[in-house]
C-alpha cells in the first residue's frame, strides 16, 4: 500500500436509481486506488450503493429534479465516501435491527444496517434546510 496515491473526486448525479451502476464502478475504482483488496472493495461498493439508494428513495423521496452529491476521498489503506441528498433527514432511533427474529422477514429496513456492518464508521448529519449527509469510512 505505500505506493497507493491519495486523491479526491466529487460527482453530482441525478436522483435516480439508474446511477447505481456508476456508484458501483466508481467505488470499486477508488477503493482499489487506495490499495484495498477486491473483496473488501466489493463490500464497500455495497455500502455506497445503499447510501445512494437511501438518498434517492428516502432523502430525495424519489423526486425528479433533485440531485445526489457523492465525494470519494482516498489515501493509502483508507477510503471515505460522503453522500449528500436534499432531504429533511430522519429519526435514527427508528432504524431497527433487521436481523431481529421478529423483523427478519420484512421486505425493507436493511439499508443502514448493511452500511454499518460493512464500514468502519457511518455518521449522519441532518439539516431540515440543507439536506442529509452520510459519511462512511473504511480501512483496508
Amino acid at each position, binding site marked *: 500500500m505505500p505506493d497507493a496515491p491519495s486523491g479526491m473526486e466529487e460527482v453530482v448525479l441525478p436522483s435516480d*436509481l439508474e446511477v447505481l451502476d456508476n456508484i458501483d464502478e466508481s467505488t470499486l475504482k477508488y477503493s482499489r486506488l487506495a490499495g484495498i483488496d477486491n473483496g473488501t472493495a466489493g463490500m464497500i461498493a455495497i455500502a455506497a450503493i445503499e447510501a445512494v439508494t437511501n438518498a434517492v428513495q428516502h432523502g430525495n423521496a424519489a423526486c425528479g429534479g433533485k440531485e445526489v452529491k457523492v465525494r470519494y476521498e482516498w489515501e493509502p489503506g483508507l477510503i471515505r465516501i460522503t453522500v449528500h441528498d436534499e432531504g429533511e433527514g430522519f429519526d435514527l432511533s427508528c432504524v431497527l435491527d433487521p436481523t431481529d427474529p421478529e423483523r427478519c422477514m420484512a*421486505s425493507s429496513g436493511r439499508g443502514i444496517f448493511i452500511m454499518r456492518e460493512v464500514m468502519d464508521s457511518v455518521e449522519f448529519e441532518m439539516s431540515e434546510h440543507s439536506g442529509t449527509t452520510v459519511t462512511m469510512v473504511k480501512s483496508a
Partner: protein
Amino acid sequence: MKVKTQMEGDVAVVHVSGKLMGGPESENMRDEVKTLIEDGVKKFVINLHGVPWINSTGLGALMAVYTSVQRSEGALALCHVSDRIQSLFMITKLLTIFDTHPSEKEAVESFK
C-alpha cells in the same frame, strides 16, 4: 431487469438478469412468481446468474417472493448467487432463510 421462466418438470425456473435494485422493474419478478403461484406452481428456482449485485430494495423484492411462495405452501431455491449477493445474505443473516445452490441443476434436484 429481465425475467424469463422455463418449466423443469413441476419446477419453475425463473431466470433473472440485470438490475435488482427496486423501482418498477423489480415488480417483474414478483409479478411473474405471483402468476405462476396462481397457476398452481409450488416449486421455484430463482436463477440469479445475470445479477451481479443487488441493493437492500432488491433484497426486499426477493423476500417478498419468498414470503409469497411460503404462503402458498410452496418452496423456493436460489442458484448462481454471486459472491457479493452471498455476502449480503450473510450480513443480513438471510443465509439461513434462502436455500442457495451453486448450479441450476442442483437447485432443481433439491426438490426431489
